[in-house]
């Protein structure tokens, strides 16, 4: 393991703003169509503050699409998603959803960190610049403060020495750790992870999961799409199984290990465990 003891990750960003309400995510009856393909069929989910939810399911089950709806990277055709009490991506006009103005959507996204399967680091910027770009540009954080925070974050994910290195000179695991630091630099109240380890070589999965576990221990509210059941067992408060655009089973990690009820869940788990 190349990772040093991460220490206090959220300390590096001065702690995250505690949302005033107990519920961070409230999704109700979310409907999503890709053309004629019905990918989300009335999905509902509630995530409380400091809760860690792991979403599992076969590819094509809609799990990635679902979390992408939560920061409006995907439009929805029905239902409502609230994060921190804000209706995400839409305004309600006479009971109908009308897409919100771009500026408002961008503002809502500031509170929602996202980590992608393929990292999506900015290749023309160094590791540190990747982290400081959004605080400088979006939050108008003073340069010195942003750099200090960026360095602290890099230190906590064990990459202090990579400050001036471009992403293509980093391993996959290192890139993903920078990507997590980049998302944290916006001080989000919620972190979304879209299969954060599935593009990684096996020996790099551990170092990334270690950072995510540390975040969980420190009380970050998170939704993680992942097939890493060992990880789910360790950190998840709740596991959600999706199939064909619906949530078919939900429970503690123990429940999924010992007594899954749904046939689809059983066959899915038998394949990945």
């Amino acid at each position, binding site marked *: 393991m190349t990772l040093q003891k991460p220490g206090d990750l959220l300390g590096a960003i001065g702690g995250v703003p505690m949302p005033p309400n107990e519920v961070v995510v409230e999704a109700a009856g979310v409907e999503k169509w890709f053309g004629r393909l019905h990918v989300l069929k009335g999905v509902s989910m509630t995530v409380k503050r400091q809760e860690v939810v792991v979403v599992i399911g076969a590819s094509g089950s809609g799990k990635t699409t679902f979390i992408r709806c939560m*920061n409006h*990277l995907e439009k929805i055709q029905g239902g409502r998603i609230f994060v921190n009490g804000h209706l995400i991506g839409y305004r309600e006009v006479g009971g109908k959803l009308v897409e919100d103005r*771009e*500026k408002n959507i*961008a*503002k809502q*996204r*500031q509170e*929602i*960190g*996202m980590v*992608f399967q*393929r*990292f*999506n*680091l*900015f*290749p*023309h*910027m*160094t590791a540190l610049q990747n982290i400081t*770009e*959004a605080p400088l*540009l*979006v*939050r108008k954080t003073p340069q010195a403060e942003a750099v200090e925070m960026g360095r602290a974050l890099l230190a906590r994910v064990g990459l202090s020495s990579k400050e001036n290195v*471009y*992403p*293509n000179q980093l391993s*996959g695991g290192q*890139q993903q750790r920078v990507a997590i630091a*980049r*998302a944290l630099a*916006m001080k989000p109240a919620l972190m979304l992870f879209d299969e954060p380890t599935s*593009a990684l070589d096996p020996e790099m999965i551990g170092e990334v999961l270690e950072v995510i576990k540390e975040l969980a221990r420190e009380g970050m509210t998170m939704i993680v799409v992942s097939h890493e059941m060992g990880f789910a067992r360790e950190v998840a408060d709740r596991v959600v199984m999706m199939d064909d655009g619906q949530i078919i089973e939900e429970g503690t990690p123990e429940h999924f290990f010992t007594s899954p009820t749904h046939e689809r869940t059983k066959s899915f788990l038998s394949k990945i465990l």
Partner: protein
Amino acid sequence: MPVGIAVIAVLVAGCSSNASSTVHLNWNYFFDSVFHPDSQIQNGLWLTVSIAITSQLIGVTLGTFAALAKMAKFRPFRIIANVYIWLFRGTPLVVQIVLFYFGLSVAHIYGWPTINFFGIHIDGAIQAGVFALGVNEGAYFAEIVRAGILAIDPGQMEAAKSLGMTYGQGMRRIVLPQAARVIVPPLGNEFNNMLKTTSLLVLISVPELYTVFNRKQGNYFAPFEFYLAAAVWFLLLTTIWSVIQAWIERKLAKGTAGSANAGPGLMDRLFGRTPAVGEDVPVISGGR
């Protein structure tokens, strides 16, 4: 290049074998034009370079806006961009040049008066020429910019948006800087073309390099010597540009997986070694 040398060799050999005939080449015209250019040639050179740079800048600016407009959500922007590109790629540049200069002034739409730009008087024909070249270039460049933007992994814009950036911020800070790397090699080709295309302004008597030599060959009735000298000067300009282009591409390559291979070197560029398939392709995607 070797073909060019062969052609010249044949021509030179041809005229020496014709020594008994009345053909007589005055090589002093050629050597004087190349090694002791008079003020007309010097001014022509300066004018060619400044017209090419100004027109290219206009083209890049218009092309970038046209590309963004073509990809805009707002339909009227897309229509305007498409009509612009359609008109200027669909008609000959020669027609555009004479239409803008003679057409507009004779029709009393715009007379192209001389303007005074920081103490430099710029003739109407030069303005019309720069305008035509720039607007025409913009229509072509729009497609290059669009291709450059489309070559960038959509995940880059998604990452920018997920961090709270607007589309405009993500475009300006994240996508366009990466697209620039993809755009620079074709931009180099476009400017190489632009340096030579300025010669079309002979049609509206702009005294650029070609116009100067065209007059000289007529005055002295020595087309071979003067046109050859014109070719040498244009070749010098495009060669200098090749060197600058290679330097820019190396500068821009930092942070890409292809850093060590930032396009063909100068010798390859000048003497046309064709890069192997898969070589010198800029790497633009974010993750691996």
